[in-house]
């Protein structure tokens, strides 16, 4: 168990390393510093090596030229001792600088371990290296042939300089360089951590603020004023999401209250009516009366529940199925026919206008349901003798069906909310006799439109109220099918 916990902690920490922006930034800073300093270090090292070698070569050359001058005009063995003495003086006691003179004549020779010289590497310009026993001392050499003079045959003068000091310098430099580089990277990491920490401060602030959001304080928003540009976009988008969430949440709460209210009325009637009926001795016809009244209330409940289920399915994104190509005007006329008697009774006429040949891919029962809700709504809000207009318009890949009726102007604030469930323009108005729906009629129109991929609109101008919904035109529907396959 404890082992499990331990591994889980380790894994989480590793996950944090991967996810922490600060740590990632610090590591990236370190990497950048390492690469930069390494390149600089390598370049410096290269320059140093070249300079040191040049310096040594100059040294060699100087000594060589100096001795060459001394040797060139020495032609007899007696004077050679002076040359030997000069070379002895020039040779330092630590053996850093060495001289050799190779000659066929033993009298004109100089230097220890002359036999070793044969192993000397030799380049075209006279430069070379030699390894000397007993401790493998490495010398850089420069050799020069000096032409014969008087008694003296041609000799080869070799100057050697120890490379150990140079190597030592380079080694020290390299060590210092690596140490400096590592400390610089470390400093950059520390600075980077500080910078990242400072740079991410607004993010931390934002996250702290976001953590402070509670369901109870839905109106709370993130402060975007002091945020850097990069974060303010995020915060604005987040606030937008919060706004939509708040609207949906409030709508849901209001909706729940409305549902409870709508269901409460028939339930109260049922309970009250039944209790009254049972509290006295009643005759069969009286009970029959109660049962009939109950049935009416129950039917109302069933109807509300069915409509709510329908709306819930539309909300969950259920699309209309069983789409058929239909002439919109024909369906409009069939639905108007359904209202024939009611229209006749109220003396209301309906004119169908617009593009009567428009075709759409629709689920016919759903379409009729939506249109009958619109007509019902228009009839309810029209006086006797009024003239309703159903206009069919084909525009921008959609067929719009607009139902207009003369009626009192509806304030602009109410218009978009007409499609909300249980929404009433005048909250106090509730004429039961006139209204046969239960406030879900236009919500169902909207649901039907959205199930077809269409939308709804409401306009109120010059004493005419127009409520419209759209379904995709035949071409648009075909295109959608072509895209999906």
């Amino acid at each position, binding site marked *: 168990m404890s082992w499990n916990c331990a591994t889980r902690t380790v894994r989480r920490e590793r996950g944090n390393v991967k996810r922490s922006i600060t740590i990632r930034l610090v590591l990236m800073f370190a990497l950048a510093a390492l690469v930069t300093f390494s390149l600089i270090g390598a370049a410096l090292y290269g320059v140093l090596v070249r300079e040191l070698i040049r310096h040594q070569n100059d040294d060699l050359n100087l000594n060589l030229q100096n001795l060459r001058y001394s040797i060139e005009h020495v032609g007899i063995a007696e004077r050679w001792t002076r040359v030997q003495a000069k070379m002895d003086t020039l040779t330092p006691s630590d053996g850093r600088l060495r001289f050799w003179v190779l000659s066929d004549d033993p009298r004109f020779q100089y230097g220890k371990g002359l036999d070793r010289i044969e192993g000397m590497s030799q380049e075209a310009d006279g430069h070379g290296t030699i390894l000397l026993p007993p401790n493998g001392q490495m010398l850089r050499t420069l050799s020069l042939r000096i032409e014969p003079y008087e008694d003296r045959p041609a000799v080869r003068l070799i100057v050697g300089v120890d490379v150990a000091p140079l190597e030592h310098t380079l080694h020290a430099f390299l060590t210092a360089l690596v140490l400096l580089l590592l400390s610089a990277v470390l400093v950059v990491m520390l600075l980077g951590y500080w910078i990242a920490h400072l740079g991410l401060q607004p993010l931390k602030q934002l996250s702290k603020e976001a953590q402070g959001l509670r369901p109870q304080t839905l109106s709370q928003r993130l402060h975007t004023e002091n945020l850097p540009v990069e974060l303010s976009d995020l915060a604005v988008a987040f606030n937008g999401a919060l706004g939509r969430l708040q609207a949906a949440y409030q709508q849901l709460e209001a909706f729940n209250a409305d549902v409870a209210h709508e269901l409460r009325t028939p339930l109260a009637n049922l309970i009250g009516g039944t209790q009254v009926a049972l509290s006295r001795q009643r005759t069969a016809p009286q009970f029959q009366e109660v*049962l*009939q*009244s*109950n*049935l*009416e209330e129950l*039917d109302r409940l*069933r*109807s509300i*529940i*069915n*409509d709510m*289920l*329908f709306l819930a*399915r539309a909300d969950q994104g*259920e699309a209309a*199925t069983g789409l058929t190509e239909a002439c919109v005007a024909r369906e409009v006329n*069939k*639905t108007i*026919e*359904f*209202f*024939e*008697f*009611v229209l006749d*009774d109220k003396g209301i006429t309906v004119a169908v206008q617009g593009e009567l040949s428009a075709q759409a891919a629709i689920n016919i*029962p759903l379409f*009729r*349901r939506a249109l*009958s809700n619109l007509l*019902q709504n228009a009839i309810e809000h029209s006086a006797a003798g009024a003239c309703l207009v159903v206009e069919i318009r084909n525009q921008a890949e959609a067929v719009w069906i607009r139902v207009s009726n003369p009626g009192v102007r509806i304030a602009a604030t109410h218009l978009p909310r007409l499609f909300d469930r249980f929404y009433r323009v005048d909250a106090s108005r509730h004429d039961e006799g006139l209204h*046969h*729906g*239960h406030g879900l*009629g236009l919500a169902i129109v909207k649901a039907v439109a959205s199930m077809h991929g269409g939308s709804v609109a409401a306009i109120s101008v010059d004493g005419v109220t127009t409520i419209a919904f759209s379904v995709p035109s035949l071409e648009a529907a075909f295109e959608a099918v072509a895209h999906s396959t």
Partner: protein
Amino acid sequence: MKLLIVEDELKTAEYLHKGLSEQGCAVDVANNGIDGQHLALEYDYDVIVLDAMLPGLDGFALLRALRGVKQTPVIMLTARDRIEDRVRGLHEGADDYLVKPFSFLELLARLQALQRRGRSQEPSQLKLANLRIDLLARKVWRGTTRIDLTAKEFSLLGVLARRQGEILSKTAIAELVWDMNFDSNTNIVEVAIKRLRTKIDTPYTPKLLHTIRGMGYVMELRDEDSPT
């Protein structure tokens, strides 16, 4: 009509049993899928009313087992109003489906429709007391008086007269006369019935078109209305 009801909700099973028995059906009830399957396979029923959600063996499995043996008509009852459920039921071989909460009248209408299925041609003339309807010529008489009806009034009368003694809900009437397949929440049917009644029933005796409050309308000859 011999019916089998397979339904685990006892109250539902009880009222279905009572209501259908009173309609003159012989009704058997099973409260779980296993008993239901046994009865459905053992006996021959005219129609089986089958709940989709059952303990022991669910309705779909029962239907599958049944369809392997015989073609008894089946009406499925589903609580979930989901398209998949409906499609699944019909796909497995159900003849019809009803979504709970359904009205008893609707169930009755569906049962009668299933029973009517495959019957011989409809008569061209209908008679009820002194009401005579010529369905082909689209003419109506009450006694010797010829009554003029509009096309829709005639359709409405035809729908009611063809189903004499059967209570038709407003939704059923809207569907049969206007082909509107939804709960319309309107008073359209009431207005239409009122008109029809004024033309064919109010001025005459006996009264044939009756309102059953909370349920719908029925066309039948009732004893209390018969001339004395």
